[in-house]
């Protein structure tokens, strides 16, 4: 008697067209543009671009990496079991030392495998971020400027100022030395080298040179970075990424 009767399946999702039609009818508007639900990609990509913005919001003309956005993203990546690895792409001119070190420390202490790729430039505070990844790559033409920390603007000339800056300097040096193959003395020497930068002290490392001094692991590009990431993922994944 009730053979033809089919109860509405509450689990069956309404078709998108039906939903749109109903919203137009009932609410007089169309559905918002929904971002499609994606399968989480196995590798995520974090770009560290422009100035690394710290405690001060930079004028809107500056392209900045905002650490308060980056850090929760790193937390989300670390917690998401579907995300197997993170590729950090650097093209930065440096920036706030505290924000830069914060990002570097977060990257360093992540369990998710990380690979960094320096493209274009990874200057100043970009160096600790580059070495913080499990494996670091630099493209052939990319440059990294290693130079001392300094204050701009009014500097009160007391010995304490120098000592304070030296202490800040040591934080960066210690971090880089701990997480790369470079020796402390060699790094300090590069930082204070004269004659290579116009009106400034420091060293510019181009591609291969950064690898030779032990700052970066390898010269490479996108394919080698992704290949390395797959390799880092393999042990826990039992076969790697398909």
């Amino acid at each position: 008697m009730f053979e033809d009767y089919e109860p509405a399946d509450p689990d069956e999702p309404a078709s998108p067209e039906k939903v749109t039609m109903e919203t137009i009818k009932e609410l007089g508007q169309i559905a918002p543009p929904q971002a499609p639900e994606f399968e989480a990609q196995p590798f995520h990509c974090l770009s560290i671009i422009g100035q690394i913005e710290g405690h001060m919001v930079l004028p809107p003309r500056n392209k900045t990496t905002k650490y308060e956005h980056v850090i929760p993203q790193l937390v989300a990546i670390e917690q998401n079991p579907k995300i197997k690895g993170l590729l950090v792409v650097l093209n930065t001119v440096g920036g706030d030392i505290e924000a830069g070190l914060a990002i570097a420390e977060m990257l360093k202490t992540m369990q998710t495998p990380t690979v960094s790729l320096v493209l274009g430039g990874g200057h100043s505070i970009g160096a600790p971020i580059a070495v913080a990844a499990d494996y670091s790559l630099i493209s052939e033409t990319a440059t990294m400027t290693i130079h001392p920390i300094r204050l701009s603007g009014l500097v009160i000339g007391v010995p304490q100022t120098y000592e304070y800056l030296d202490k800040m300097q040591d934080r960066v040096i210690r971090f880089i030395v701990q997480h790369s193959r470079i020796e402390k003395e060699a790094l300090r020497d590069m930082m204070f080298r004269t004659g290579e930068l116009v009106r400034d002290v420091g060293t510019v490392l181009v591609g291969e040179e950064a690898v030779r001094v032990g700052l970066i692991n390898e010269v490479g590009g996108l394919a080698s970075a992704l290949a390395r990431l797959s390799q880092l993922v393999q042990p826990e994944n039992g076969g790697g990424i398909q």
Partner: protein
Amino acid sequence: MILYTVLPLEDVLEGIDEEPTPTMMLSLNGLTLEVEQLEGFQARVVRLHSTDPEYYLVAHCQPGSIIHLGEF
């Protein structure tokens, strides 16, 4: 910043004195978009804040595309 271009500097920096429109952050299905508010509940995407590379392929997430805010 070093510019390596055949364009004259005044062309590259045209409009640099103009105050840029303030932007706001918009959350959409777990994705954060930096948008510039336009008239009539519309907004123009300025920047996409996500580490998921798939989102960068979605047409309405591209910088410059206009989305409707009325529904949020």
